[in-house]
């Protein structure tokens, strides 16, 4: 499979995503510079990495959405291509209107970097197909604006549609106020679009995909993408259980 990692000025998890996809999952990966208006190759998925695109000076993701490459991302998503936005990438997808809602400053008004737990609320997406419903994953967050907000109607709709994919929880899977690190509505940590091919999450799966880093829970998310692509392009599928065994 071949994946594109978008590089905006100020992206800083681009190399981490590249490393995880290429050296941990063994996929082909290209960096795509933000000034490109179209993709030159065929990709099985696009990754919008974390960081501080354009310094996040106006509002997180607010300037990046106008970047030339977002035309290519938008077209790719509209054709059903898999797009995952991680952290700043999630913020950009919200600003670009590819996902519903918006991000507010963390309730504490501080940057928070720590491991949190998230519960898989919907395993029937290309990004969670290697998980089971109710799985609790330990994945780190590192952001100042991850407090997901949407109006009640939108929240009701995305819950109803199964678009809420990951929720912050405690280590036993309990979804509570105490386990919500940033004040997100409904403890939302990750959502997808109605068509399930565009997904945004605040926690960083690429940071916990190798045993030497002490945690491989994030690999389930990235492997899900690869597994989905393999099926839909006729390759062999990587099953969740294989990964569990490998761990």
């Amino acid at each position: 499979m071949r994946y594109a990692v978008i590089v905006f000025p100020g992206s800083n998890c681009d190399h981490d995503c590249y490393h995880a996809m290429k050296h941990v999952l063994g996929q082909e990966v290209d960096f795509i510079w933000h000034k490109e208006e179209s993709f030159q190759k065929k990709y099985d998925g696009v990754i919008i990495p974390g960081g501080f695109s354009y310094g996040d000076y106006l509002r997180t993701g607010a300037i990046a959405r106008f970047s030339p490459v977002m035309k290519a991302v938008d077209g790719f998503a509209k054709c059903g291509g898999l797009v995952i936005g991680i952290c700043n990438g999630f913020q950009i997808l919200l600003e670009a209107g590819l996902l519903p809602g918006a991000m507010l400053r963390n309730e504490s008004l501080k940057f928070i970097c720590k491991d949190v737990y998230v519960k898989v609320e919907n395993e029937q997406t290309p990004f969670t197909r290697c998980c089971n419903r109710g799985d609790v994953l330990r994945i780190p967050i590192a952001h100042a604006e991850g407090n997901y907000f949407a109006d009640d109607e939108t929240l009701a709709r995305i819950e109803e549609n199964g678009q809420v994919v990951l929720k912050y929880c405690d280590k036993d899977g309990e979804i509570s106020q105490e386990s919500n690190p940033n004040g997100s509505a409904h403890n939302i940590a990750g959502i997808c679009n109605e068509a399930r091919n565009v997904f945004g999450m605040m926690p960083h799966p690429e940071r916990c995909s190798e045993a030497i880093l002490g945690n491989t829970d994030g690999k389930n998310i990235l492997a899900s993408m690869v597994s989905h692509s393999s099926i839909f392009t006729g390759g062999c599928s990587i099953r969740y259980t294989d990964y569990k065994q490998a761990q």
Partner: protein
Amino acid sequence: MEKTKKEPSITPELVASHGLSEEEYGRVKVILGRVPTYTELGIFSVMWSEHCSYKSSRKHLGRFPTKAPWVIQGPGENAGVIDIGGGLAAVFKMESHNHPSFIEPYQGAATGVGGILRDVFTMGARPIANMDSLRFGPLDAPKNRYLLDGVVAGIAGYGNCMGIPTIAGETYFNEIYNGNNLVNAFTLGIAKKERIFYGTASGVGNPVIYVGSKTGRDGIHGATMASEEFSEGTEEKRPTVQVGDPFTEKLLLEACLELMSKDLIIGIQDMGAAGLTSSSCEMASRGGSGMEMDLALVPRREEGMIPYELMLSESQERMLIVAKEGMEKVVEDIFKKWDLEAVTIGHVTGDGMLRVKDGGVVVAEIPAKAIADEAPVYDRPSERPIYQDSIQDLNLDLLSVPGDLNGVLFKLLESPTIAEKSWIYRQYDHMVRTNTVVYPGSDAGVVRIKGTNKALAMSVDCNSLYCFLHPKAGGAIAVAEAARNVICSGARPMALTDCLNFGNPEKPETMWQFKEALEGMSLAAEELNTPVVSGNVSFYNETKGLGVYPTPVVGMVGIMDDVSKATTQYFKDEGDVIILLGDTKEELGGTEYLRVVHGLQKGLPPDIDLKAEKALQVAVLEAIDVNLIKSAHDCSEGGFAVALAECCFRGEKEPLGCEVSTPVDRLRKDALLFGESQSRIIISAKPDYAGAVSDIMSSHGVPCRTIGRVGGGSLIIRIGDEEAVNQSVSRLKGIWREAIPKPLKA
């Protein structure tokens, strides 16, 4: 309206206001053979400031051991460089931003991080880890809470945006830092050994290219400000603090590394303190060349700037490059790709002069070597302070041993200096770049090096109260403890960088502290074979005549050949045996216990036997290498009891208790539990391995005693038959965890 300032004429008052002594000014006139222009006066004033010239310290810095086969570059360049094998080099340095951070905590700390990052990537290294060493007054004062909050947010704001993890650090709280907080930032980068770049200018005719942000009026005389004591009206100095833009620096980093991957340049240097002035004359001086620049070509963000301001501005995120002739266009294109300016503003000359023009007019013409390298060097008088005897005097017989030792442990865990620092490091991205193997909170931070099996461990340390009470012992302990922390994480200490924070060097007592501390650091660095490869001196940390404790902070870097050997301080499994290495003596002088419980900052600090320290370090590393040890933690502030509690807390994991006993001893109970005797490490191991551990220790002559087992939910310490401490570890952890956030919520 004419916005351009008129240049003032040179008067004795103007000279004095530039911080130049009469003698120094006389020297300027001899060098020039005439009265300086206003621009030249400004240039001499910043370059001969304490901050840039090291005029009070230079003579003494020569004492440091700086050589070893693995040292590629010692002090004197933008950063130190060591060989870490596999064709790779580690490039690192530490620098202070104390004065700016006190005046404007967020920007002061942020630009401190920005500056040290540039020092490292200017040498062709990609920064992979940051650390910081911070000191504030107690948190009950609102001003100190404001400073802590601002400094931490500033470090986070800059480092996080740059995508460099902050993986370790230290923070102390003491009234002595009320008027002068200390903010020291460390950066380490990785480069290919044969692709190290230096700040040098050579090759007559080669273009001098200005890259990065535009120049504004910010930070003018920042270096001079950092070379003075604070007095009333310090707030008015806010305009001398620069404003950081980490986004631009991120672009500058990527553009510079792209530039350096090609064969385009001769030399490159960051425009840090003293901006365009220091970068131009230092590069020319190192290359034995001259340089001619036209300031009319310098990109600027404000109108009407005069040459004086352009030369002295400390606007951030700028670099000066000497490129190979004919490569101007290629360089410009790389920077254009990253939306940055690159403008050729001059060229290298062969006459050794720094010639600065404004349009066609020469506004400064000085021999580059004279400014950069021929600054006055002072052998300032030094004298042991008259109060030294009285602060070292401590009669333990007059101190009663507290009856409630549990209560003492609570008090120590609640002391912000000992308490958990997660309120600080959670604001730092400590995982970005996916290399962090050991998170902040353990003895040293550990990052793996991708594409190899290796990792680097690093730690910053200094107990400044020890240094106040006995500068030589304190200096030696700073080096020994930093190395011990690196050892506890499973790495071999290789070299160190330092940040020497002291008071006013014009006071003989300050110079005595300085010389003594350097002597102690040198002895330890020699014994442990960890040369000094870079560093920074910050004098004048003094307000209204009161100086800080001598605070020579050490940043130690070690190598681990096999990253899977990375070890933490946390107990791992129930049933493991706990072994105490090293001797406990009756040493309470300078301890956190004495300060917190008895309100005394007195006595002699613990004794340090460098031979015993070396033996301990070698032995522990050997035991880690053969996989005998599950955890290792050194005893520092708070002594044995606090170290044991920290092993139980286990960072983010659930705490795990332990039960240990020590035989009844001739020692006082408080010394046994809370004394800070050096060269002690608590390790845990599988019970089956206890014998093998003991064999290794005895082969190195290291005292080694099995004292108990991991398990249960309580920390239990018995002295003979008496239960001295028995507390739930969850409760202890709660106290330790809440101590810093609590006053900040108020």
